[in-house]
């Protein structure tokens, strides 16, 4: 039960954080100039977005939940089962970011979820 709760925290907070971060990155434009100064200015613009801070907060909480899981189980179990965030991520990308998730992408997400289930069952 403790592992399941930690997994839900990793998946929901981690995906929520990534979606918020993705939304923030869309507002600062495309990064194409690979130079240190340009990178600094780019990150500075990103940090002005409220979505970035919401995302960072959620991802920090997800990070500590991940540490909790890693203290209990093997990394070869923990990391694959967190792939459950693909289902949450694809739904969130469609609803929250306006991305058009194609049928092929949904099929891929479904296959990933089947793989996650198999990995979960491998724990016995």
């Amino acid at each position: 039960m403790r592992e399941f709760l930690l997994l839900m925290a990793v998946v929901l907070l981690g995906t929520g954080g990534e979606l918020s971060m993705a939304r923030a990155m869309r507002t600062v434009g495309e990064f194409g100039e690979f130079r240190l100064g340009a990178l600094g200015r780019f990150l500075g613009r990103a940090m002005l977005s409220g979505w970035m801070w919401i995302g960072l907060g959620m991802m920090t909480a997800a990070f500590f939940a991940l540490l909790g899981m890693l203290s209990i189980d093997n990394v070869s179990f923990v990391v694959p089962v967190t792939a459950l965030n693909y289902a949450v991520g694809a739904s969130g990308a469609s609803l929250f970011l306006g991305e058009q998730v194609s049928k092929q992408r949904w099929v891929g997400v479904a296959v990933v979820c089947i793989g996650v289930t198999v990995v979960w069952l491998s724990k016995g």
Partner: protein
Amino acid sequence: MIHFRNFHLRTWLLLPVIVILGPVGNVLLSKGMKDVGAEMKWNSSGLLPIFIGIFRSGYIWLGIASLLTFFLVYMLMLTWADYSYVQPASALSYAVVGILGYFWLGEAVPPVRWLGIGIICAGVLIIVGTPHRTTHPGTTHLATHGTTPQRPHQTPHEKTEKV
């Protein structure tokens, strides 16, 4: 100064960085947490000894450094590629983490787990065949149906948005 105008080149140069650094970071965190012995302390003396152990572990700091670099590259990729493309494409790291767990940490990885990891990678291969981008840069609105996904020369900063 290096300009990467080629959309696919940028993506394929940075994707391996994500696939390697993510698993390395997670394996270092796992080694650090096992060294801290957090599982025993969960059940006995509360969270404070765990946090002290975490902040004193070199493996955990190395893991955090690796994951921060991963995070930075991931953020940059999100500026030109769809979240629902980048996220699954980076899932190839699940195979890498299984390999690292087995060879580096000496974890017992049963055949069923390898099967599951293989299925996850198959799902990833299905997803990477889809267009990288379905929305316009600088916006979170829905793209017009049938819009060409690759627009590397579009001017950035089309729209700014704050919470």
